[in-house]
């Protein structure tokens, strides 16, 4: 995990992508109790190739370093990482406002709690809805901030309730 984060920082420093932050369940774990997951969602601002968003340059660099794709992820130092491009303005904003954190001395970034909730609302699968419930019940949510983000992106502000 620490080695995985170090590789991600290297890739950013080398310009393979412009900015990264942890999202999904691994991102949520910065704010609430651990929940089972098997991959790490990493949101990235990708460089465009002939106007197209592509993960190919990331995969090429990682392959050169001996990291192999595994289904939709790429295995980096034992952790399957799924790179997700900043595919809409909400993700772009979340990445821009990502928080700098450290994991046992290794610097990294995590999406802000309110953006994690908004993104899960926007994605809207069953597991995303469960994550919204958990983050709302257990996270230290800035409700004013969340309402402001939801308002701008046409999302319904979730209610606070007991954790599922």
């Amino acid at each position: 995990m620490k080695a995985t984060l170090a590789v991600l920082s290297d890739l950013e420093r080398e310009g393979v992508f412009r900015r990264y932050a942890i999202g999904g369940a691994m991102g949520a774990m910065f704010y609430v109790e651990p929940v089972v997951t098997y991959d790490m969602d990493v949101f990235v601002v990708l460089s465009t190739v002939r106007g197209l968003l592509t993960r190919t340059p990331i995969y090429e660099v990682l392959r050169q370093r001996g990291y192999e794709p595994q289904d939709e992820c790429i295995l980096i130092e034992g952790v399957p990482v799924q790179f997700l491009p900043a595919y809409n303005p909400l993700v772009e904003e979340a990445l821009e406002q990502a928080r700098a954190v450290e994991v046992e001395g290794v610097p990294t970034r995590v999406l802000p709690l309110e953006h994690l909730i908004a993104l899960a609302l926007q994605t809207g699968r069953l597991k995303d809805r469960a994550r919204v419930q958990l983050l709302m019940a257990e996270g230290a949510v800035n409700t004013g901030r969340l309402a402001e983000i939801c308002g701008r992106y046409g999302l319904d502000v979730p209610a606070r309730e007991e954790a599922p």
Partner: protein
Amino acid sequence: MRELPPLMQLALAGKQRRRRALAALPYADKVRVLLRLQQMADAIGATRGAPARSWPLDPATLLPKGTPLGPGDHPLDGDARLKP
């Protein structure tokens, strides 16, 4: 909603305390809990022939198992330095 019996209320309050304590752990410790959860899920999955999916990380170092440690990298080094 119907009121729960006192024993159940106590049990649920205990669960709530437990999840708050887990939420307050440092992130690296949460990753260690995650590794345990993955192993538990693997054990259940194995009973129906599902392949193991837990990450091959050493819970002490959070590095891939078998990674050679450099000086100062061992998790007990900090404690060892405190000893005379």
